[in-house]
């Protein structure tokens, strides 16, 4: 389990550009959760996820992984990086290897896994991301489509067998097809027991993919709970500059003229319900 306790992070503390990036942040991430971290640009989302594996150190407070403070001297950095894997924005821009196998094997190899383990990790990770390993491992990652590249980049972190997978805007800049494939495979990975936390600006993605929402505003956690509870709090959503998914906004607007409409997360189901109500 990962736990953040009363953390403050301040950038450029003794300059006129001083910025309090996170203030008094506390949270716990338990096994099997899928957490969407949302908020406007500059609200502290990226700082928060970089705390998770020690890339950013708190000015005050603690980051505990399985009860151990990861920022103490005797903790192995390699072990932390292996346990908490981070996929940054546009991860495919960091590709360097000649083949997909070598790209995905880079992490496990640096963690001193054996040859047998490396092969197993690479194959397993590619399978989680929806690939048939033998048909892709010899290809150059640069020849793949946008969606495939992003999935290979995510696989290269999964190959290190992290306990928690952190993704910073996993579908940013992707078209419909790429986005759909990345989302469906993250969802499948989650079904397989992978703990995930992802930053997103896409409220539909947060609504459909997460079972918990953490909302940040100006460095403070302003909400930590279920997607249903968050998206039913219209005041909070507009106060922090976000908007509810279309399916909820649309249903709400229809309530005035159609009366009570059963709640549905699914747009097709909502349309069927509307059709049944106005078709007669």
């Amino acid at each position, binding site marked *: 389990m990962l736990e953040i306790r009363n953390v403050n992070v301040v950038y450029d503390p003794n300059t006129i550009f001083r910025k309090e990036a996170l203030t008094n942040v506390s949270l716990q991430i338990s096994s099997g959760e899928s957490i969407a971290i949302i908020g406007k*640009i500059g609200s502290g989302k990226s700082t928060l996820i970089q705390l998770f594996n020690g890339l950013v150190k708190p000015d005050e407070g603690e980051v505990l992984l399985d009860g151990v403070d990861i920022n103490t001297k005797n903790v192995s950095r390699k072990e932390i990086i292996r346990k908490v894997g981070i996929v940054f924005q546009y991860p495919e821009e960091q590709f360097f290897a000649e083949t997909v196998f070598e790209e995905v094997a880079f992490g496990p190899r640096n963690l001193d896994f054996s040859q047998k383990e490396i092969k197993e990790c690479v194959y397993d990770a590619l399978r989680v991301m929806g690939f048939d390993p033998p048909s892709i491992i010899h290809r150059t990652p640069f020849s793949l489509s946008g969606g495939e590249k992003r999935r290979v980049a995510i696989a290269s972190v999964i190959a290190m067998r992290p306990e928690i997978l952190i993704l910073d805007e996993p579908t940013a800049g992707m*078209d419909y097809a790429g986005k759909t494939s990345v989302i469906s495979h993250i969802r499948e990975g989650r079904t397989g027991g992978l703990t995930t936390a992802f930053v997103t600006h896409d409220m539909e993605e947060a609504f459909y993919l997460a079972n918990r929402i953490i909302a940040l505003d100006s460095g403070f956690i302003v909400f930590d709970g279920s997607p249903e509870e968050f998206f039913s709090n219209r005041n909070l959503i507009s106060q922090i500059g976000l908007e509810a998914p*279309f399916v909820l906004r649309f249903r709400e607007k229809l309530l005035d*003229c159609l009366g009570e409409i059963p709640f549905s997360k699914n*747009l097709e189901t909502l349309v069927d319900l509307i059709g049944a109500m106005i078709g007669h």
Partner: protein
Amino acid sequence: MIEFRDVSFAYDKHQVVESVSFSIEKGEFVTLIGANGSGKSTIACLTNGLLLPFEGKVSVDGVSTDDISLGRTIKRKVGLVFQNPDNQFIGMTVEEDLAFGLENENIERDEAMVRIASVAELLGIEHCLSSPPYLLSGGEKQKVAIASVLVLMPDYIVLDEVTSLLDPFGRKEILSIVKDLAGNQGKGVLFITHNTEEIVDSDDVLVVSNGKIVLHGGVKEVFADVDFLQSIGISIPPDVYVASILKKKHLVGESVFFEKEILDAICLK
């Protein structure tokens, strides 16, 4: 007018733009949509001679972009703004950043300061002028990137996926500025995106797939064939998607596309 006439372009032997023809007038807001890798960014680079066509012709106000002697004039007329503003900053402060292009054009300092103040006011970034660009929010950074092109007073501006890294609020802000550039400032705007929710107020829409323009028309003409758009990897705005299902069930009329139209059609039944 920017005019593409039967333009083709290839990187090595890989053809990415094929027989593309369209035009953009001053004051017109044209949107170019397409999936990743469809050729959108290459078309952006062809508009002002950053890339030159292998076949066909691109001209700006009648001057061909392959006329090397007028290359600088063309680049002054057509400003490009790219996706990631962080890749475009060179100044220590926003003001220095905005002054960079003007200094390169040998614009007098007094004139430069007037232009910077005027563009900063237009985009609402006066308060950022003395800040280092890296300390700005994503939306502010993108506004600075647009401002650094506008101070050069181009007649046309090409914006390549400038909203893709922004939150919903930043997106709306940039989109409203872009519409204003065409509607009130008289610039010819080519707005490139793969987010179809952003094309709703366009004068003209170009849909590109595998380097070819496969659809060209008004917003509703383009949204008339939802299945086709999805088949070429383009997402459909949720309201247009809902309207398409309701139309298939004959529950709303064929002219219904957007949220307000759907609500009107349903609530008047």
